[in-house]
């Protein structure tokens, strides 16, 4: 398998020559989609975010040498496994971050556990990463399917939309999102009248939309992501689905998707995210620096998650003075997290990162002041309610 490993940032610091401070060298691998449907929401932006974390932490000044490498897993689990193995076995990578596409994330999750390294996921959605497939070596940072279902699912049912039809991407992430949302809908008194699973990635969704229309559902839940969601929403408007009164629930929508759709088509969508660039002064300041390096494009929550997770990892390296896996994981779970993007939070025993989630509504074109001014905050879902309770996840290693 040929893949390009780009050495993007080498913070080699010889500044400390002469001092007696201990030198620790860590190597971080940013593994994500650099060319496919998820490249804009993760991709090079995640590498920029990781580099910013290293700079902001002032790793060099603290005697920690950080090297960042990156690779394209093409959203394929087999490619992801090969890269992860090579990184751990031959290239001396200590930490893998990002890894969108749940099926690829599961592969990296397994290999990381086998090699006893550390995996901090930002891009993937399946809540099974801290549930059935949980691992003592994994932290799941940014969001998961349970949190998305909780946010958007609950909000839609509360508005009286209780008959659902799902259009689901046919792989691990779509299945998990569909399952978690169904559970929320049914628990809130709603009903699921049908589902259809489409190959991933897809281009034409009109056939599924027509099936959804015929089902008589009030809400069409889109359990897919990225370009698939963009195309589904576009075609729903083309086929008059939304105009005829059915509501769309985009269960995972990134700000880059809204940017691609344009507000004219996307307005009124309700969605759940854990980060938005325009939340407060700190997120605005960080996002401005990020955009300056990313062709003016604002960060997604995945980029924010990569930044915050690398920052938390480096703090643990500093605190433990080394890179021994058990010590680092224990340190990361026992120390509360604190960063400008997600605020105060914690990493739970099962690896789930806990923070507030936000329910947003996409603005109408008239209400937007310009590019990237897309969301209006509807509600904040407090951290203690946003994620699945630890006892419901069925995480096996906790019982040991």
């Amino acid at each position: 398998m040929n893949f390009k490993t780009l050495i993007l940032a080498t913070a080699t610091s010889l500044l400390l020559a002469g001092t007696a401070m201990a030198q620790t060298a860590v190597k971080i691998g940013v593994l994500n989609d650099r060319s496919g449907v998820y490249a804009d929401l993760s991709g090079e932006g995640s590498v920029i975010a990781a580099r910013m974390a290293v700079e902001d932490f002032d790793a060099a000044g603290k005697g920690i040498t950080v090297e960042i490498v990156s690779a394209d897993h093409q959203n394929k689990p087999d490619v992801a496994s090969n890269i992860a193995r090579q990184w751990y076995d031959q290239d001396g990578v200590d930490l893998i971050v990002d890894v969108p596409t749940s099926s690829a994330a599961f592969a990296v999750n397994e290999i990381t556990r086998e090699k006893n390294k550390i995996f901090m996921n930002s891009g993937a959605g399946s809540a099974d990463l801290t549930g059935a497939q949980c691992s003592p070596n994994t932290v799941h940072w940014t969001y998961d399917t349970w949190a998305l279902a909780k946010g958007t699912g609950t909000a839609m049912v509360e508005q009286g939309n209780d008959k659902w039809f799902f259009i689901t991407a046919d792989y691990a992430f779509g299945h998990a999102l569909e399952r978690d949302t169904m559970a929320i809908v049914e628990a809130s008194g709603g009903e699921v009248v049908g589902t259809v699973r489409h190959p991933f990635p897809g281009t034409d969704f009109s056939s599924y939309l027509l099936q959804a229309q015929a089902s008589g559902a009030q809400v069409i839940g889109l359990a897919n992501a990225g370009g698939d969601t963009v195309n589904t929403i576009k075609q729903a408007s083309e086929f008059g689905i939304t105009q005829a009164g059915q509501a769309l629930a985009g269960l995972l929508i990134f700000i880059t998707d809204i940017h691609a759709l344009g507000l004219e088509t996307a307005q009124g969508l309700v969605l759940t995210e854990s980060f938005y660039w325009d939340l407060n002064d700190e997120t605005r300041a960080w996002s401005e620096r990020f955009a300056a390096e990313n062709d003016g494009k604002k960060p997604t929550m995945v980029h924010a998650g990569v930044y915050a997770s690398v920052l938390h990892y480096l703090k643990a390296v500093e605190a433990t003075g080394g890179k021994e896996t058990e010590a680092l994981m224990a340190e990361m779970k026992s120390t509360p997290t604190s960063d400008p993007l997600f605020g105060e939070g914690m990493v739970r025993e099962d690896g789930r990162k806990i923070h507030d989630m936000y329910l947003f509504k996409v603005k109408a074109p008239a209400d937007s002041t310009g590019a990237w001014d897309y969301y209006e905050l509807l509600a904040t879902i407090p951290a203690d309610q946003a994620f699945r309770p630890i006892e419901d996840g069925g995480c096996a290693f906790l019982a040991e």
Partner: protein
Amino acid sequence: MFELLGIPPQALFGQLLLGLINGSFYALLSLGLAVIFGLLNIINFSHGAQYMMGAFVAWMLLTYTGINYWWALLIVPLVVGASGVVIERLMISRLYHLDHLYGLLLTFGLALIIQGLFRNQYGVSGLPYSIPAELSGGTNLGFMFLPNYRGWVIVASVVVCFATWFAIEKTRLGAYLRAATENPTLVGAFGINVPRMITLTYGFGVALAALAGVLAAPIYSVNPNMGADLIIVVFAVVVIGGMGSILGAILTGFGLGIVEGLTRVFYPEGSAVVIFVIMAIVLLVKPAGLFGRTQ
């Protein structure tokens, strides 16, 4: 009211129509491939990238110069077709004396380069391109709501496919072209400039791909990867129809669109592979394809 395998007939008609719309794109793209293969013996793997270029050039015309969809339908095939002519003159023409495989590798490499360049410049999320005002809205057919634009895609595709078939099979120019592929030396001896004819044929095939790209721009997001997945399916269509068969490419394009559409109803998980299953069966039973001639 009868039902077929649990699907009410109205829903079925709707799905058949949707299949026909997708088939329109398959037909237009496989037609271009068939023309190029039939007359140049080149397997044009950059066809998907040229389709994507069609959509992008339409988007650029609208965004940077304000030129609307209707003009784009005319201008884009000319511009992208001209780029095809340049590629044929500079690169492909040097490979005619070699095995097919070299042409395939060259055009595949070109496709990767073109897609990479666009991806670098525009990202992968896609760019919005609106449906022209004249074709927005839709018509209620009783069994489904047909967006006017999709109806237009079917009509445009059928007209272009028929015109191409007619030009190649029924006109004097088409006869020259067909003769030139059989025996270029002899046709050249009659005073016909064979290399120029071949160059223009490649340009025409590319222009067809670009036209499909313009038609697709308002439906799918304009995105550098839009041709990459499609091209594999379109190759399967050409193989099933019979390499080089013009009529085969058109009929199989529409036919397989419908088969795929029905699969989406009865077994959606299989819709990505159904065409390849059919391809495997056709290759086993009739290796030259449904409409191909064994040489």
